[in-house]
């Protein structure tokens, strides 16, 4: 893949030359992708495949500001030249549709290469060997519990990009992502429950790494235990409660509640903007709370350059309770009144890039200690941590929301939802498991209610974000645990 990306430069330069001749701005994106995947269940391989895909997108802005994106799944030079001509033609035709005119600002000429050392190994993945290892892993996770259905999946995704602009910018980068996931399901008395666990590594040889396997096995065993217990758990009533959430849920809170509303392409309707401009300086949360998004090396959502060929900068969205910076790209920064940050990402060469998050985190000043590894914190140990910190002196009971299972936001209204895998009601003498329930409310209420944090930052909560139908990897986290006071605009549940 690395050699092929290098070789594509000539085609890109030729198109850039043609764009200059036609006096159009060009963002040329070539993508090569390979995905190896294997799934095993009940000791058998259920699927095994290697898929490759590639193509390029010609994104033009004409002299009068109309834009169009044309794409093909090959790199045939004649077809590529036709594609550019076609893109200019349909952009010019945008006038009849009332298409908006865009101004392309002066952009920094950017050249760079980012190819991690782990990338070449992705060309030598042995799927049969991977399947054997997954089968062993399934048995280790099952640990003799034959009434639980366990599916183990391996996915090694190599995502390579070459992006050129007619101003001489040229970046190429390759993102290696390997995820091993486990889904557990259990049926009893006609009722089924499921839970999942996963772990990420930039190395496609992660299954040969003891630390990785230990981490995955711990998470998976917890999922197995949960699906066995959930059928007997009661539903949780609706209401506003003091909460403790783990770092994965904190990632969900940052991503859903604030990250999306800070994406500058939505400022004409976002609650974090007024008259299309970011409300920089506005107080939106407690003074000791900040939210930061930035690409993190060796992370699931790492992306060193934007899909428009700019260097991706860190963005401090909330700085000690006040709005500070936004996720912005060339089309949205100036209009939104925020600095250009190279925040655009795209799912594929077919997609128009949008300002998107990478790895987002909540930081809390003065976080308390949480000794040891996060994975060793079961509900009992969480309760001990809270008891030692005196949290039960403030709240007789506290709801511990464990494990993130997705979320959604309406950036226009500021309403967000996300769900957990389990709810534990903790007090000084007991722990009671409840079924998961939706956690929803106003983003301002949620950030205002963050009271304290425990533990160091842990940023490996992984997910996928589906903004405008484009799925890109996301990640993030926070301190091991965040404590949220009850807030009338933030609710849990209800349950039937």
């Amino acid at each position, binding site marked *: 893949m690395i050699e092929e990306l290098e070789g594509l430069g000539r085609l890109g330069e030729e198109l850039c030359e043609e764009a200059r001749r036609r006096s159009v701005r060009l963002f040329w994106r070539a993508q090569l992708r390979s995905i190896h995947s294997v799934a095993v269940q009940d000791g058998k391989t259920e699927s095994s495949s290697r898929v490759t895909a590639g193509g390029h997108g010609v994104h033009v802005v004409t002299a009068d500001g109309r834009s169009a994106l044309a794409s093909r799944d090959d790199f045939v030079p004649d077809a590529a030249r036709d594609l550019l001509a076609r893109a200019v033609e349909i952009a010019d035709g945008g006038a009849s*549709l009332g298409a908006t005119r865009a101004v392309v600002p002066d952009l920094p000429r950017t050249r760079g290469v980012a190819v991690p050392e782990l990338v070449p190994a992705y060309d030598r993945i042995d799927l049969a060997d991977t399947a054997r290892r997954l089968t062993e892993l399934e048995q280790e996770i099952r640990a003799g519990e034959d009434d639980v259905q366990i599916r183990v999946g391996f996915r090694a995704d190599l995502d390579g990009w070459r992006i050129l602009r007619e101003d001489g910018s040229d970046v190429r980068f390759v993102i290696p992502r390997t995820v091993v996931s486990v889904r557990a399901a259990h*049926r009893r008395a006609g009722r089924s429950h499921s839970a999942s666990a996963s772990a990420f590594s930039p190395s496609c040889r992660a299954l040969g790494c003891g630390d990785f396997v230990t981490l995955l096995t711990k998470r998976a065993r917890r999922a197995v235990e949960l699906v066995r217990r959930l059928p007997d758990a009661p539903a949780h009533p609706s209401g506003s409660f003091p909460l403790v959430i783990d770092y994965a849920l904190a990632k969900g809170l940052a991503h859903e509640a604030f990250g999306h509303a800070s994406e500058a392409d939505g400022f004409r309707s976002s609650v974090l903007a007024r008259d299309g401009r970011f409300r920089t300086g506005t107080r939106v949360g407690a003074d000791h709370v900040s939210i930061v998004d930035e690409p993190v090396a060796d992370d699931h959502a790492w992306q060193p350059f934007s899909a428009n060929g700019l260097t991706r900068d860190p963005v401090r969205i909330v700085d000690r309770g006040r709005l500070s910076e936004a996720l912005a790209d060339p089309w949205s920064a100036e209009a939104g009144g925020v600095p250009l940050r190279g925040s655009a990402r795209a799912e594929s060469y077919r997609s128009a890039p949008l300002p998107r998050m990478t790895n987002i985190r909540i930081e809390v000043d003065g976080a308390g200690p949480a000794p040891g590894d996060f994975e060793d914190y079961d509900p009992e140990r969480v309760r001990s941590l809270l008891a030692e910190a005196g949290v039960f002196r403030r709240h007789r009971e506290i709801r511990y929301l464990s494990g993130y299972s997705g979320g959604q936001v309406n950036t226009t209204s500021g309403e967000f939802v996300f769900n957990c895998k389990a709810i534990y009601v903790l007090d000084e003498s007991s722990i009671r498991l409840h079924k998961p329930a*939706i956690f929803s409310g106003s983003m301002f209420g949620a950030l205002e209610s963050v009271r304290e944090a425990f533990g160091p930052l842990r940023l490996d909560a992984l997910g996928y974000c589906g903004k405008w139908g484009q799925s890109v990897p996301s990640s993030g986290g926070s301190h091991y645990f965040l404590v949220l006071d009850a807030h009338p605009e933030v609710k849990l549940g209800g349950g039937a």
Partner: protein
Amino acid sequence: MTSSPHFERFIDLLRTREAAGAVRAWSAAMQEGRRLSLGIKDREIGNPHSPLRLSEDGGLHYRIVWDQGTYSAGRVERRTLADAPEEALDEARETAYDDPDAAWIPPAVPLPAVETHVAATARIAAGDTTPFAERLGVIRARFERSGARTWSGGCGASEGSLRYASSEGADYRTAGTGVSWYVGLDGELGDGHSGRHLDSDAEFDARLSRLFSLREIFSREATPPAPGTLPVLLDPGVVESYVLGTLFHHLSGSTVAHGEGRFSREDFGSEERLLRDDLELSHDPTVSLRRGTYRFTGEGVPAAPVTYVRGGRLVTPRLGLKYARRLGLEPNAAPAAYDCVRFTGAEVVPFAEGLRRAAGGIRVLGVLGVHTQDIASGDFSLAAPQSLAVGDEGETGRVRATISGNLFDVLRDRALRFVSFEGETTPGLLFSCRVDPK
């Protein structure tokens, strides 16, 4: 749509290896298509975040049973078909594994004659944006009179072809078109159309009128009902995204075979009614010119009507080739879009009657968090910020609520009612569950 020579070359290679004894059986399905689309973001049509887009792509899906009985399934992209088909086959062999349930190719059979292609739609997909320009003009004019703050949405058209050939003598071909438009107001309410051809001007106007009328009611804040077990009327869009999405997951052959859902193999064909005794769920992909219409699947299964649930009894799961064999049942044609799905009960009440029976409760227009639910349990706890309070005289205005319960309890409830909505093929559902207004 120029890659047919590459397809021919690839299946020639398969035939050669079959004749040499390296391949026992095979199938190949080549899809090619092009699409034109346009987005609207906060009143801006075709800005760089949602530009006019034109795309062309294709690929070939193969299923190969090798000489030793091992099996490979995968996809070859168009450029590999052109440049390196031999290498693609060699790579397919390297990924082979033992999967006796998947390792078979269905016999060639006659296909149904159904219409899936509309020339007018194909012209849009090729670049004629005139029909979209006219529609966008109407939408913009309605928006400007409406008092809504912003609108977003999109429109698009596609044309594609699919050719399937196999070692069993099949050589199936089909071509189809698709077109859609969607309008969302203030990021909260939306409606649109998706089909093989554009809806008529009258249907378009009627749908827009319903949307803007709904927005008028939605713009008023209503006094929420007290929390409790209340009537809830789910709009068809919510029924599709949550109810049918969950039900079809539980009816998937994979879910059944692996014991990951509500139903087991023994439940299918049994006399036991696991859902309410009048409940029906079926699918017919042979009705011409629906979005979900097709002639055959990518595995070479011909389109034919399928009944999943009849009289509350389970008839068959959704079955591709692999899980059909594993469960000892016949493969069937999976739903491609909800406009070919029939979900109903003995009594379907008109919308006005449904709304009357929902008095004291809420009408749910949209929910957040469908993908966050534990789909295996059927338990739901969904935020419903786009809801309307329903009084004795109909909807009174907007409320926000959480709804919770268990879907399978709902689908067995005697009080469940199906409600017809104008312009929709999927019904709404009226039932009672826990409602917690905010």
